[in-house]
């Protein structure tokens, strides 16, 4: 079904723009037009469909659900909801406090917040269309593991000791009377009609597309440049899996580069097809998406420096291990 985008791109690149398929430029332009048109079409259709399905899911519902759950599966549920619940990263502090004051353990809240930027419908969609379902399953699995294990670890070291004092108090209060807090917002629980769902999905599709289209262009543009101009085998030779340090280096490189999952996935595609090992690519991309300075500075409002630094180091460590494991196991996939 994706053939139509290849044909469209061939027609535009070779017939209209008159570029030759033999040149590097022609190759890069063809790649760019094919990917951008395919991704744009998929994004609009799929965001709409997914938004229809999850219109009635919101952070308030997730909080009510999680606050009633047993700790053991709380991490898994926190991470799963993090993957599917729509919420803007500018809301992460209110969400953190909302969960905390409902008595939900810090680890479970962090499972939710860590998984959220890594996995979302746009990321999954792009991975499917660019890198295939196997890689997508792998990515989702690893992303959830980072969220779940990260949350478990934070509870094991009793991370709540290092919250800002007002947040710690809210947590204590919430745990002693978790019943009262959860009734604050009841308006999210009414059933939605088809028309309301359509309205929600239309707004969502427009809003998300409006936010991510430029990232797609930048990401695919970078990808096209790599695709057309970096000599074949160069990456493999210089950053291949024989150099153990390439994974931590990729993670460190990813920190100052801040992007959302949408922009980084087209880059991932071209890195992998150019021979960068899968693990190194994953490590780089997860670090770009999940470990960013702006996000961490926001978290400072609710966490003390010690906890903030712990979370940061934990993420860097996790992404490095992910990279090494995948590089080691790629031959068997």
């Amino acid at each position, binding site marked *: 079904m994706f053939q139509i985008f290849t044909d469209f791109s061939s027609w535009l690149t070779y017939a209209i723009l008159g570029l030759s398929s033999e040149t590097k430029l022609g190759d890069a332009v063809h790649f760019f037009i094919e990917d951008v048109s395919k991704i744009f079409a998929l994004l609009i259709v799929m965001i709409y469909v997914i938004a229809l399905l999850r219109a009635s899911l919101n952070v308030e519902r997730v909080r009510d659900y999680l606050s009633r759950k047993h700790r053991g599966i709380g991490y898994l549920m926190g991470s799963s909801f993090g993957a599917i619940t729509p*919420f803007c990263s*500018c809301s992460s*502090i*209110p969400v953190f406090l909302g969960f905390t004051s409902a008595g939900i353990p810090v680890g479970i809240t962090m499972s939710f917040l860590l998984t959220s930027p890594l996995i979302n419908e746009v990321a999954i969609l792009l991975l499917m269309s660019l890198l295939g379902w196997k890689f997508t399953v792998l990515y989702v699995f690893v992303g959830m593991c980072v969220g779940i294990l990260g949350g478990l670890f934070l509870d094991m070291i009793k991370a709540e000791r290092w919250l800002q004092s*007002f947040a710690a108090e809210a947590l204590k209060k919430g745990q002693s009377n978790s019943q009262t*807090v959860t009734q604050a*917002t009841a308006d999210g629980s009414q059933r939605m009609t088809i028309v309301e769902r359509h309205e929600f999905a239309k707004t969502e599709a427009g809003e998300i597309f409006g936010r991510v289209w430029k990232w797609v262009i930048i990401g695919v543009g970078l990808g096209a440049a790599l695709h057309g101009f970096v000599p074949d085998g160069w990456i493999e030779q210089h950053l291949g899996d024989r150099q153990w340090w390439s994974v931590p280096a990729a993670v460190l490189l990813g920190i100052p580069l801040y992007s959302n999952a949408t922009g980084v996935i087209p880059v991932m595609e071209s890195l992998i097809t150019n021979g960068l090992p899968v693990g190194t690519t994953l490590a780089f991309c997860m670090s770009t998406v999940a470990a960013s300075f702006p996000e961490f500075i926001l978290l400072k409002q609710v966490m003390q420096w010690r906890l903030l630094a712990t979370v940061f180091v934990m993420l860097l460590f996790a992404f490095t291990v992910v990279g090494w494991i995948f590089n080691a196991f790629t031959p068997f996939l």
Partner: protein
Amino acid sequence: MKNITVLGSGCTKCKKTAEIIESIARELSVEVSVTKETSPQVIMSFGVMSTPAVVVDNNLVHSGSIPLREQIINWLE
């Protein structure tokens, strides 16, 4: 005069919300004072998790999106 507070951590949607309320109030010539509140502690005290949220005279009336025109007119009356 109505006191309207927009809760939110300073994202573009929150700024837009405050602007829209002010402009509709001008249009209807209703006297309001619109303030923006970014402190996480205050946002928490209203039990709000999705911003922007709107508080009219200390009552939380809306959260999670830029409010619709009809809603705003409703609050101002």
